[in-house]
């Protein structure tokens, strides 16, 4: 580690210029990892042997400098700065045996891995794009043969067409909820209408479950919806003064009857 410090101190003018270029160019970076990768290049070593501590200091220096120049840094750059500061302290302080978390060395190794992986993928991408490409270096048949003996019409569509069609439907202005959702739900309005028609006959205390529409008592989902709607409707009728409501104890049946004086 002491070696790293020395290296840092003898950073040549070129490196300093490079760092200034980084500041000017901050928009050109694709996030903190990209920046760290670029900074790591100034160490001019194999990414496997990189000094994460030195890298952390370079990065923190970069952020400090950006602040001094009043360059606004995106939040993720600052999050990375905070994390690297934490990492730096972990690397410098002797490990606390009581601490359960990962060690500084583990964290550093992972960061080095991420950088190496990103660099490797960049290189792979460059190699891929350097390959001979169809339509540029080699070519398919220019006149696919059209033997018009058998003409069969078939239809095609791409997955993208399919998804876009769906997206178009789901974002139309006159968005409608799915009928599937609707036909399993009894609305309060429906329950109220139903109760109004029946309440005239309810002289005695009756369990509200008796008022569920026919066929809604079996399926739990239907029953749940119908119960809730019917209960809400009874409350509305109570508020109007049309009926009385009572419940003996928690979870006991809820009963209603027509108001006597009504």
């Amino acid at each position, binding site marked *: 580690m002491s070696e790293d410090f020395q290296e840092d101190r003898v950073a040549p003018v070129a490196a300093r210029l490079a760092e200034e270029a980084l500041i000017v160019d901050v928009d050109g970076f694709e996030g903190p990892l990209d920046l760290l990768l670029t900074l790591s290049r100034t160490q001019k070593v194999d990414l496997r042997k990189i000094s994460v501590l030195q890298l952390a200091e370079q990065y923190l220096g970069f952020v400090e400098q950006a602040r001094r120049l009043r360059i606004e840094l995106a939040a993720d750059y600052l999050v990375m700065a905070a994390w690297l500061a934490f990492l730096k302290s972990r690397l410098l302080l002797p490990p606390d045996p009581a601490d359960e978390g990962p060690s500084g060395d583990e964290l550093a190794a992972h960061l080095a891995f991420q950088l190496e992986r990103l660099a490797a993928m960049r290189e792979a991408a460059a190699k891929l794009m350097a390959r001979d490409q169809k339509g540029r270096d080699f070519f398919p048949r220019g006149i696919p043969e059209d033997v018009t003996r058998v003409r069969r019409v078939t239809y095609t569509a791409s997955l993208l067409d399919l998804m876009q069609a769906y997206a178009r439907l789901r974002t139309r*202005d006159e968005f409608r909820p799915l009928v599937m959702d609707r036909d399993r739900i009894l609305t309060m309005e429906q329950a109220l209408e139903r109760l109004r028609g029946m309440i005239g006959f309810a002289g005695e205390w009756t369990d509200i479950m008796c008022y569920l529409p026919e066929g809604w008592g079996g399926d739990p989902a239907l029953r749940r919806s119908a119960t809730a709607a019917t209960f809400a409707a009874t409350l509305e009728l109570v508020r109007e003064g049309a009926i009385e409501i009572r419940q003996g104890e928690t979870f006991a049946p809820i009963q209603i009857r027509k108001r006597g004086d009504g």
Partner: protein
Amino acid sequence: MAEEHEQEPRESLFEAPPLAEQERMVEAILFASAEPVSVAELNARMPHGADAAAALELLRARYEGRGVRLVKVGEAWAMRTAPDLGFLMQKETVEVRKLSRAAIETLAIIAYHQPVTRAEIEEIRGVSVSRGTIDQLLELEWIRFGRRRMTPGRPVTFVVTEAFLDHFGLESARDLPGLKELRAAGLLDSRPPPGAGTPEEGEEDGAQDDMFGGEGAGEDES
């Protein structure tokens, strides 16, 4: 041959490529070109000093009796499969057309909401679904009838088929991206529809889970 070699130095500072190489060039150009190519155009496209006519003669001889022939079309040249093998070309004659918007939307709804009834499709699309659209999708074998819905009228439902998955390169209907993913991929306007807040999205996702969890989708994959 001898003649050609004497000509070359006068024509160009560079030597023309060997005739065998010119033959390769003519072969590649004729293969890739979308139209028959004239000798003049071949000469214009090949390196200076090349003799396309001579190369064409070699190439023609080479393809003699092969599955592919060199043919003259007016003043130009093209490659064509041998006429006696025309019967192998049936597959190439299939005319491929894009699905209509109505059909693709109907298909999308079936894929995302299966099993789904005709009434539900109409509810989502907001217009009635013509018989021809469903018939077309059935004929393409991209959809088939699912179980009848246990609701009044016991309407038939539609589900997508193996052939559908195959055509769209999906391993299962479950692999269709959900609304959130469509949105993330930029396929969906990120602005929620007017009047619909965030719960809408949750609801939809729920509906989707429901439907993929249920019998419909699972049945298809087996």
